[in-house]
């Protein structure tokens, strides 16, 4: 059995099926990796686009609402008088409403800079509507510096003690004279939550530690009831995120290394799920790169689907190869093996004395040619035997007559 052509064919087919399964597995893995790269890039692109859209629409909403709110004639006198309690009282109902409806998180009233100081480094806070007990301090930020210098609408991202926020600032005027400034802000956590609702992806906002103050960060985290995560990463700080487990945003690189149009980082397994990680940079209102948003795209469903498809493809291929193998072996058996066995049987029986047993070619193929040759050989063999027998008989007869 081991030496038969049939067995050798089975071995060759089995090896071919095995190699085919390996090739299919390899190919599916490549397709999976390509899809992961594509999805990862797409999730980064979508997240960056969604972030840009949210930034634009939120800015428009804040500017329009703030402009309308400033038409209240009670506001300018309160700002001019630096009346903390009055400003908090006027602002709180709107703040509560906008916080619930649009996620407004910051509302600050600022004193006008001292006369003669054209571009102050800091402005004094009159009131924080979101945190009324904290006021009267000098705050040095890009947003406050710009509104004090430019005296007109200022919008954009700005890094504060509590993290990054989208801010819109307007001057407050009384009788054509600037008496102070108002600022609305949306913390990026609101953005990230909205983006998560749209895409299902997880987002984490990371900034360089060098742009933050260690003590102020610890104080803010304590005030918010959050764990102080300053030491989680070497140079970066996760300031806002949407994930249950923020350790998934751990990164050892730097913000400066992130390409302008984002970058797919890697695929990670965590708690039985598979995620692709990517990142894109964000810049503040001064055009400085101040942070990056990490995007986690859940690939578990894709991976499961690909794995299922791969298994189906392998099973289908193995079944098809097995059917093909059976057909090939059947054809080989009918066209070659049976005819060779018949010739072997005929040759044996001819030698055994059944001289008139003929081999009739079954087809005009290669084996048929051999059958024809074999039949011609049989005829010659039988004729030779008859001739030898005839000569023996004649010799015997002569010998009989001679005696």
């Amino acid at each position: 059995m081991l030496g038969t052509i049939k067995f050798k064919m089975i071995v060759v087919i089995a090896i071919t099926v095995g190699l085919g399964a390996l090739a299919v597995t390899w190919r599916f893995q490549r397709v999976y990796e390509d899809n992961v790269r594509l999805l990862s890039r797409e999730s980064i692109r979508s997240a960056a686009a969604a972030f840009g859209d949210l930034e634009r629409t939120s800015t428009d909403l804040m500017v329009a609402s703030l402009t309308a709110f400033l038409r209240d004639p009670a506001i300018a006198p309160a700002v001019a008088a630096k009346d903390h309690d009055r400003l908090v009282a006027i602002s709180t109902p709107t703040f509560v409403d906008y916080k619930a409806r649009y996620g407004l998180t910051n509302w600050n009233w600022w004193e006008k800079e001292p006369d003669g100081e054209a571009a102050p480094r800091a402005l004094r806070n009159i009131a924080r509507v979101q945190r009324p007990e904290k006021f009267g301090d000098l705050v040095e930020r890009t947003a406050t510096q710009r509104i004090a210098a430019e005296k007109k609408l200022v919008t954009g991202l700005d890094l504060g003690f509590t993290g990054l926020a989208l801010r819109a600032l307007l001057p407050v005027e009384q009788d054509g004279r600037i008496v102070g400034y108002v600022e609305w802000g949306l913390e990026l956590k609101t953005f990230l939550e909205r983006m998560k609702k749209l895409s299902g992806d997880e987002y984490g906002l990371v900034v360089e530690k060098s742009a933050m103050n260690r003590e102020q960060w610890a104080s803010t985290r304590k005030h918010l009831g959050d764990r102080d995560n300053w030491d989680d990463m070497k140079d970066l700080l996760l300031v806002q995120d949407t994930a249950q487990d923020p350790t998934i945003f751990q990164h050892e690189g730097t913000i400066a290394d992130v390409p302008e149009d984002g970058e797919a980082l890697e695929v990670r397994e965590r708690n039985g799920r598979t995620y692709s990680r990517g990142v894109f940079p964000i810049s503040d209102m001064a055009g400085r790169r101040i942070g990056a948003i990490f995007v986690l795209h859940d690939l578990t469903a894709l991976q499961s689907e690909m794995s299922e498809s791969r298994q189906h493809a392998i099973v289908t291929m193995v079944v098809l190869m097995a059917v093909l193998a059976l057909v090939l072996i059947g054809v080989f058996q009918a066209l070659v093996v049976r005819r060779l066995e018949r010739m072997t049987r005929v040759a044996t029986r001819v030698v055994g004395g059944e001289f008139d047993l003929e081999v009739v070619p079954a087809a005009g193929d290669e084996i048929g040619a051999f059958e024809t040759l074999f039949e011609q050989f049989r005829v010659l063999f039988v004729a030779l035997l008859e001739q030898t027998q005839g000569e023996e008989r004649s010799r015997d007869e002569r010998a009989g007559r001679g005696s």
Partner: protein
Amino acid sequence: MGLTYEAKRKVEQVIAERGLNAAEVKGKLSLRSGMLLAFVKPDSPDDPVKLEKLRAAARELLQIEL
């Protein structure tokens, strides 16, 4: 009567007893022993080498001692 002829008769007897195909069995023995059993006659000379091959073939194919 030579030993080869006796062997041939014994083979034919076994074939008859077992109802085997005579041509096929004789053919196999002939091919293995190198002599045509069909042409073995009572006065055919014995070739010891071929006879031994025939015995070995019979032992293997028919499980008999010639």
